[in-house]
């Protein structure tokens, strides 16, 4: 019975998110992988918003109250999805794709095998190991434990107020967003008691969902099946990401996943202006400030990317102005919302941290080869980055600038040298950067292949051969041809 309740606690929110995405997607080019992948995270958002509403309404945090509410939300989304599906014309099938070669199939099989093995290994740690890393039991699960055991939402207050006998509980981060502890509390409420291993199941489910979403978005972007699997594998094999699932309990995994989902949707929207993708980008960007304080900055960065993409062919000067305006807005917003927390950041001369940073990026195995390959991807895909993916490029550049300012201009630089925060901060942006780099390389490879084919065809046609040689710029022509497929902006 307990296992059934836990299963329901994972499956029902996931179904709710999926149903609502199906209801909202209309006749978009989305696919089931996108719907299931993003659906999980939307389901988490629905669940925790419902818990907040229940808390505000003074309703008890009980399975008997929360599960029916979620089932109702699922049913409503399902009914709407069914209704819109009936109205929708049967979508035209995409043009057939050439069968994968044996080499591709081997590559995909290796990636799938490694991922399947990894999910099993991670499941052992998630399911068995009681809460382990420091912040998990000093500032996140503290709230989950109180809410789930009291079956009600009680406030967390600064310890000075606690000492002054103000009503409420305290821990080391009473001001932190509640989404992650609400997730943990939801599992504990479903299970019927606080099991500080099982409360982390949403991390494992989120890991699987992130893989589905990456695969789905890669397929939607025209990446072949085998290489879409490789794209998902590249992200899910990042050691720091895996560690944050194995030793679950921090919010960083969900921040990283939400930012990656938002960025992928932004890239898709930038490509063909499909409203459903804009909706996905906005929804996942809105999740970010609900997860962790820096999520406000990450969410603002996605918003900036959307604006830049919306302006399409606008001049870089206008984009720069937009960037400055959004940056100012983000800083002002953060200052209003979290001024106490922000005062902890002190302007300071950076310590000598570049060596430590290089170790963490390139020498230790935090990120496999990601930071070696990203500059290469940017180089080969530079044209794509500043044309068809400029919104995502600006968003990632702003993310890098944000991290650079924090690490070089404040006392946080010391946290690079002791390896405490640097990788957790990079984790927020790494999955998004990996997908971005992968798509750049894919499109570059496609353009290069087209160019080679065009050159070969030109050389094979005797009448045209002379002319093609005179032009002498076959590859550029082919790239221009590829871009011609882009819809008018």
């Amino acid at each position: 019975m307990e296992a059934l309740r836990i299963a329901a606690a994972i499956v029902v929110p996931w179904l709710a998110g999926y149903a609502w995405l199906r209801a909202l997607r209309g006749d978009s080019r989305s696919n089931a992988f996108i719907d299931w992948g993003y659906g999980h995270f939307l389901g988490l958002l629905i669940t925790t918003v419902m818990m907040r509403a229940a808390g505000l309404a003074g309703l008890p945090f009980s399975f008997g109250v929360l599960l029916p509410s979620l089932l109702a939300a699922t049913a409503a989304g399902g009914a709407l999805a069914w209704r819109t599906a009936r109205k929708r014309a049967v979508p035209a099938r995409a043009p057939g794709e050439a069968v994968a070669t044996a080499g591709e199939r081997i590559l995909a099989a290796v990636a799938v095998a490694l991922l399947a093995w990894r999910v099993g290994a991670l499941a052992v740690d998630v399911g068995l190991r009681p809460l382990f890393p420091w912040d998990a039991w000093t500032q996140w699960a503290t709230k989950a434990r109180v809410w789930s055991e009291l079956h009600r939402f009680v406030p967390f207050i600064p310890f000075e107020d606690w000492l002054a006998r103000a009503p409420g509980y305290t821990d080391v981060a009473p001001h932190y967003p509640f989404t992650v502890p609400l997730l943990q509390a939801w599992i504990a409420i479903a299970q019927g008691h606080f099991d500080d291993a099982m409360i982390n199941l949403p991390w494992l489910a989120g890991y699987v969902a992130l893989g589905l979403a990456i695969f789905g978005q890669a397929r939607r972007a025209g990446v072949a099946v085998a290489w879409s699997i490789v794209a998902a594998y590249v992200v899910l094999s990042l050691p720091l990401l895996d560690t944050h699932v194995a030793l679950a309990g921090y919010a960083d995994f969900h921040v990283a996943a939400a930012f990656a989902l938002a960025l992928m949707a932004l890239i898709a929207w930038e490509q063909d202006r499909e409203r459903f993708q804009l909706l996905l980008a906005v929804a996942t960007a809105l999740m970010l400030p609900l997860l962790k304080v820096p999520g406000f900055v990450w969410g603002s960065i996605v918003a900036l990317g959307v604006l830049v993409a919306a302006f399409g062919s606008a001049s870089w000067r206008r984009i720069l102005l937009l960037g400055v305006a959004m940056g100012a807005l983000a800083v002002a917003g953060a200052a209003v919302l979290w001024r106490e927390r922000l005062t902890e950041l002190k302007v300071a001369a950076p310590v000598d941290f570049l060596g430590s940073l290089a170790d963490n990026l390139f020498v230790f195995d935090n990120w496999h080869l990601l930071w070696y390959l990203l500059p290469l991807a940017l180089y080969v895909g530079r044209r794509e980055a500043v044309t068809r993916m400029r919104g995502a490029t600006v968003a990632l550049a702003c993310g890098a600038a944000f991290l650079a300012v924090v690490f070089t201009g404040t006392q946080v630089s010391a946290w690079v040298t002791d390896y405490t925060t640097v990788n957790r901060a990079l984790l927020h942006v790494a999955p998004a950067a990996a997908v971005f780099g992968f798509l750049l390389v894919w499109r570059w490879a496609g353009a290069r292949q087209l160019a080679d084919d065009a050159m070969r065809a030109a050389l094979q046609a005797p009448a045209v051969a002379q002319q093609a040689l005179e032009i002498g710029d076959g590859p550029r022509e082919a790239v221009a041809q590829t871009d011609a497929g882009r819809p008018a902006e």
Partner: protein
Amino acid sequence: MRGEFATTTAVVTASPGVPTTLRVLATWIAAFAAIFGVFALAYGFHGAVTTTASLSFVGRELRPNSRDAGVEGAAIDVRGAKSGRATLLQVPLLPFQAADLGRLRVDAGLVPEGTEVAVLWVRRLEPGKIHDQRIEVNRGRAVPVMLDRNPEWRGEIAMVALGVKGPSPEPWRIERVTLEAVRPATIARAAIGDWTSFGKWNGRSINVSFGGPESQQLYLPPLAFGASLLALALLYVRQRRRGGALPAWALVLPFVVGWIVVDLRWSAELTAKAAQTWQAFAGRTLDERHLAMEDSDLYRTVSLARSQLPGTPQRIFVGSDFDVFRMRAAYYLYPHNVLPFGWYDAKAMRPGDFVFLYQKADMRFDATNHALIWPDGSKSTVTAVLAQTGAGLFRVE
């Protein structure tokens, strides 16, 4: 959209077949082996092939300094000393040049939980100064130590010993201790040993993944990336000779191989860690799993304290000399209304509040007068709910 599908078709039609994939793989392996070989030669070849023979001693030849070590056949068993002091096992050798023998290997059984092992040495010219280097334990086995990386391993070494310290009553059986010369093969073995040294999850794991021990001579990611670059260069040269350009996938594939190789190591590490977790926790209740963790004594004490508390949430001030115990005790005491930081004396307390103390050396409980005595000498009248050595729960009156 026209462009996307055109892109897809173009790449798929020209993507790798098995023979070419194998050629890329073979090139990558050759590149990897070449870089690895150069590295091993650079660090392991010092101008001449060293002829110094290894020095090897069976366990019973080691000279212990306490009765906590005893000979068992050809081996020697070491138990954790009740005094908490380290047991030293001196290696019976004559002075030798540090440069000749730079690697120490201990062939032994599984190192008991909590036992720490180190190698200690004295240089002939500094007889009063003992240097030491910790011996890492991986999956219960002592990892060979590269002493030549330690700046203090130089000159003439007059004494070498093993230091064994730990609480375990279980014996650690040492079969043999060997000091080896550092050769290219030794360097290569050490690097592979580093990559396959996985260790346990620890407090730093959530922040950094070193890819083996923190300190290594050759980390795998830069080597794999270097091999990918070299493989790419080799493929490029080969293709140029045959005429024509490399297809896009051929440019990408060496990096995919490099990624997978690095990830195979990480997968093995994750698997080893999952196996440790399984071994420690599988089939146990939540209470039993907590009791199998490192803070089991704290968990047991807090559980006892919780059982003495009223069912409704109480305000509890938690104190300990150690951050980790204060915070962890508070976590275990929720949903009682706890404060594990930001208070230092009795001023904030009122009758009816509780105080939970664990390993707080500067406070005492006066049982006769029912009083807690604070570091400044002030007293609070309390009722002891739970009072035991090193821990207590008190109700403020």
